């Protein structure tokens, strides 16, 4: 089994450079929480909606992509600290995950993806019996 089982090793290969320049794509800020039995990826993607979010898991790489609908932009800008665009980010999770049990929830601009580990690879605590 692949020893580099967990996440940190890679982030966002960003391979596809062929996006249209018109739609900007940003990398969302992400928290990754590991509780042994599952890994949760929590991403800030404000302004999206559930229908425009795509989560895929392929060859050990989890990719989240959100298409953000344009917002009303009245008048002229006088201060601009962030851009509005789509979001995309990938993480290599490695092996030992149960792809069929991945769930994704979107609420209040936050996407939470839960990726459970296969039962066989979950860390187990072995009780030591006193003889």
């Amino acid at each position, binding site marked *: 089994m692949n020893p580099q089982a*967990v*996440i*940190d090793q890679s982030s966002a290969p960003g391979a596809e450079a062929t996006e249209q320049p018109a739609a*900007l794509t*940003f990398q969302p*800020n*992400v*928290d*990754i*929480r*590991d*509780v*042994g*039995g*599952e*890994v*949760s990826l*929590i991403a*800030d*993607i*404000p*302004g*999206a*909606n559930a229908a425009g979010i795509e989560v895929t898991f392929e060859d050990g790489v989890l990719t989240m992509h959100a298409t953000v609908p344009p*917002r009303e*932009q*009245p*008048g*002229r*800008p*006088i*201060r*601009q*600290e*962030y*851009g509005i665009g789509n979001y995309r980010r990938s993480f290599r999770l490695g092996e030992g995950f149960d792809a069929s049990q991945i*769930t994704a929830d979107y609420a*209040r*601009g*936050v996407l*939470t993806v*839960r990726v*459970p580990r296969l039962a066989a690879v979950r860390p187990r*605590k072995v009780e030591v019996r006193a003889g």
Partner: protein
Amino acid sequence: MTTFRAGFALPLEELRDEFDRLWTSLTTAPPLHGWGVRPEGVFPAVNVRETADALTVEAELPGLEAADVEISVTGAELMLRGARPQVEPKPAGNGEPAAEQVVWHRRERGTGGFERRISLPVAVDPAGVEARLVDGVLSITCPKAAEAKPRRVEVRSA
């Protein structure tokens, strides 16, 4: 001093290449006042726009509910205050060991309180300020104070 390789047209071609390079670097660079300069530690980032009647302030506050944000307006200053909640998703599966260890492989989102004051270019009418928080995007519409609105002056004919 540049050494020309051959012919008199080459310097012009080099000049053209130079312009091409310049053009490419300009058109692919981040916008001057844009997303490249989100200041570290300043939360939330805001975009402010102006129409004839109002100023609109938009801020990204993912994870927050309307009740988590306090907005106050005095004269030409807008203040946003609140706290980002600590997200602790519960394990979906049953039978997790109770004393399991939580490991954070990444923590980029940030938590905790924030307060930000934004200077507006003109005074606004505090009574008319409206705010909406949808999908983590806060939009605040601040109607300009009556004295700050553009006034059309009729020219009287003699």
